[in-house]
């Protein structure tokens, strides 16, 4: 049968595309000040300090962390437009990601995250645990929780997202961490940041 041709190629592509020299420049996000994020009009006011990572998942997104993204990852998506993908595609040819549509309902946001992760990480182990309405930046929005495991790791992770479709664009904040200790220890800080979101 096809063997591991597929798996190895994906790994090689992923590595080749990202193996640029590591840029210094992880920035400190100070506590208590409003800050615009993800090169957009979305602003938040964190009550504790964070580190902003220099590597971005995509053009209108950015990530914060306390200890490094494998232990806590707070990511902002600021106004992703229709026909764009949630984050950078590794291979448009072989693994195209789903695209934002202007007609998307808030309930489609968790599915977009799920399918994007399933494809990008090459894993079927992604489950949306639940979703409920919750305002985001003062607009009708959604809160959802999820769990997933990266395929080459045995560390189950939990995630929580808050977002909305505003003027046909997607605004979203997610927090992910290993379910062992790190999710619980960081989620309160995430919720505070998400609650403070303004447009």
């Amino acid at each position, binding site marked *: 049968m096809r063997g591991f041709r597929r798996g190895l190629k994906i790994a090689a592509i992923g590595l080749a595309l990202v193996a*640029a020299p590591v840029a210094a420049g992880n920035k400190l996000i100070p506590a208590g000040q409003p800050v615009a994020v993800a090169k957009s009009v979305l602003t938040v006011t964190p009550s504790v300090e964070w580190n902003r990572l220099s590597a971005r998942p995509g053009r209108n997104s950015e990530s914060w962390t306390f200890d490094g993204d494998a232990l806590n990852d707070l990511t902002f998506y600021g106004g992703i437009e229709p026909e764009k993908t949630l984050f950078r595609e590794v291979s448009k040819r072989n693994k195209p990601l789903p695209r934002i549509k202007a007609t998307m309902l808030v309930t489609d946001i968790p599915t977009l995250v799920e399918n994007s992760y399933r494809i990008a990480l090459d894993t079927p182990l992604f489950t949306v645990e639940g979703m409920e309405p919750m305002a985001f930046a003062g607009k009708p929005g959604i809160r959802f929780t999820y769990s997933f495991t990266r395929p080459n790791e045995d560390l189950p992770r939990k995630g929580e997202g808050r977002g909305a479709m505003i003027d046909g664009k997607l605004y979203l904040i997610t927090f992910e961490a290993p379910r062992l200790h790190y999710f619980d220890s960081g989620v309160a800080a995430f919720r505070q940041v998400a609650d403070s979101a303004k447009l």
Partner: protein
Amino acid sequence: MRRGWGALAIAAALTMAATPLAAQEKTGNKPGFTLAPGTATIVLMRPSITVGAQSTGGSYEPNADWTDQARENLGNALAEAQGRLGNRVVNFVEPVGQGAAVAHEYRALFTALADLVQTYQFFPGNRLPTKKRGDSFLWTIGAEVAKLPGVQGADYALFVTTEDHYGSTGRKLLQLVAAGVGGIGVSAGVHKGYAGLIDLKSGDLVWLNADLAMGGDVRTPEGAVKRVSQLLEGFPGKPVETPAAPPTATKTTAR
């Protein structure tokens, strides 16, 4: 975590670069932490040991004989070194059933933690601002680790990881040729490892010693002894030994 590739890229960059890295060998200590000899029980978790060859093309080839030899040699060397760490060391007994899955998850979490310490604290070009202040070394595996089946009765947990890819003759020749022809850096062989100590009351990482260029051929008993002594260098509370190794200043030279 779509950015999982970022961490791998860093790891790849670290192992591919031929130019010496400033952070080739580094130790971190939780500020103010001390461990007096004879005061604690330490549980040694099952070491993660990988030994194989690196072909000319750079791909890793497992070698079962070498890994078995290394496991035996390192096991003996660790057992012997344990007695000289100043405190009582016991081997972790792998639980059965559900406990095994939890132990597995903790092992994975520790590996993630140790990698991040090296990526975001030890590697100077990439440090996180909050980790840069003074002698800050605040890393934890979470206090719930005290409930892990098998660590009860111990005060600290010691994790050890070593990885060796012995460069083949072809690889070493390629290294010389590439350097001569175009000044291209080609690494030959991988010999890295780290050892870390977790305080079981708080889950805090109180000590981590990482080295990307370790010495000692782990396939031999003498080499394993040397490797273990490098892994456990600077171990908290270890009584001072008469130095047999060269002084710190020359550590980064080839061994």
